[in-house]
């Protein structure tokens, strides 16, 4: 089931760790329970954002890669 995101964050063209830094900043500005959808193109960014969510306590809802994009969906807890 697709979860509707409250906010979309594009990190296309950015090298790690910028996608994680902007994910952190975006989550900080959101309310608990809200959903963030991050799109990045650095091949290492998906693993990094997943690991960040594990460490930061955000809920990882889904990940997928398509057409050079890495997409990670998180919920702020």
């Amino acid at each position, binding site marked *: 089931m697709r979860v509707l995101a409250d906010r979309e964050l594009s990190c296309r063209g*950015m090298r*790690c*760790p*910028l996608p*994680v830094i*902007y994910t*952190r900043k975006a989550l900080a500005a959101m309310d608990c329970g809200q959903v963030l959808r991050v799109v990045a193109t650095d091949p290492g960014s998906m693993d*990094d954002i997943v*690991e960040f969510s594990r460490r930061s306590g955000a809920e990882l809802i889904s990940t997928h890669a398509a057409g050079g994009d890495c997409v990670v969906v998180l919920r702020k807890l």
Partner: protein
Amino acid sequence: MNGAPLLEALRGDFIGIDTRHCAADGRSRRRIYLDSAATTLMMSAAHATATAFLQHNANTHSRTHFSAHAAAEAYAFARERVLSFIDADPARYLCLFVGHGATAALNRAAHYLCAYRPQAGHVVVSSMEHHSNDLPHRRVGPVQRATLTGTAPALGAIDAGAFATLMRDRPRYAAVSLASNVTGIVNPIAELSAAARSCGVPILVDACQAIAHLPVSMRSLGEPDALVFSGHKVYAPGSPGVLVIRRDIVEAAPPAELGGGMVSDVSARDFTLACDLVEREEAGTPNVVGAVTLGAALEVLARIGMDVIAAHERVLTEHLVASLLAVDALRVYGSTDLAACPRVGVASFNLADHGHGWVAAALNDHYDIAVRDGCFCAQPYARSLLASELWALEAPDDADSAERVVQRRRGMVRASLGLYSTRADVDALASALREMGAHPGRYRTPNRHDDEVGARHEQPAPPAVWQVRAEIDRLLTARWRSAHLQPA
């Protein structure tokens, strides 16, 4: 002379130990070489042996003339010296000299192991590997990572329990390092070998960072299936890469290269491979001089005793780590609990929020302390060690500006020790870092390195480099004059 007395005599006998450069203050300083993990200085005794051999220099693959015979014998000596140095049974293992560093040897090992286990499948590679013990295996199949103990940035050695679990899936083979080139952390290879063997999985060990610093014995390491190191890490720069591997694994594979010296008969349509396995696998002209240099260096180290060297370097490594940890706002990566997590003499660090490029360049320019900076060809490992501090950086909303903030922090500074390193060298490093941390403004030299973007590599070569080029030119000119202008 041997043992500790030989060690003391040897420590000052390396080419370049007294090299001097003109520092930023205009004073001549003796270089403090703390970059041995990248390449070591040349042992004078090994160089002298190679120079003496050059009187007999000739190609191998023949014993017809005296010099060819001498070259073949010298080359065989180097091979035997390698096997005995690492306590490898010549009936079980063979030694191949491949390329000019560990990279070619590791690629070659991947070729053999791939052929030995031809069924499709994944390869297990540890999370701390140098690119040369990572990328060749990605061509073989999907890579599964063996995890490390501890948590970043205090990661430890390869987790032996988790590794044993991975072996139960029977990967094609496993590739691990004996010691990390980033943190120097030593892995429990005997335990890993036993776990791999119990599942019938071959294990390849990269011993580059350990070979000059620890006793490396194939028997004590649990008889791994292959082991690689390079001569330039063991006081013999210019020597070849070394692959020691089980004979039956090589026998099962097609020759890695075709060419001269590896065949017994060639017709216009066909050829017959040489019976000797080493000849078959070393096509072309070997690096005999380099191999002799390596053999001589290993001979000297063996006479000292690697246990003596390891004990000596353990004390200096403890001093290095303790001295770095005592510098304000300095972070050393990897576990620094040396009792629980031993390491060879390598420490990577960052100082406060200064870029690694600035720290390394300032150490060089102002103190003539040679260290390395960056990710040391181990980006996945460096990335995991740096992750938490990079993720916490405050970056502007504009991505270009943010990239400039982050760019200079994507790496670390590495100090690494060799036999010639001293407590005074370590103290000088720590003292310089304390000064730089306390008064960073005194070290800003914009023509040499830019703290904001770390773009020092794009700057013109510093005066010391021109000094070296001029010296080479002077030596060549003098040599030409002596050879051609002076009467015989």
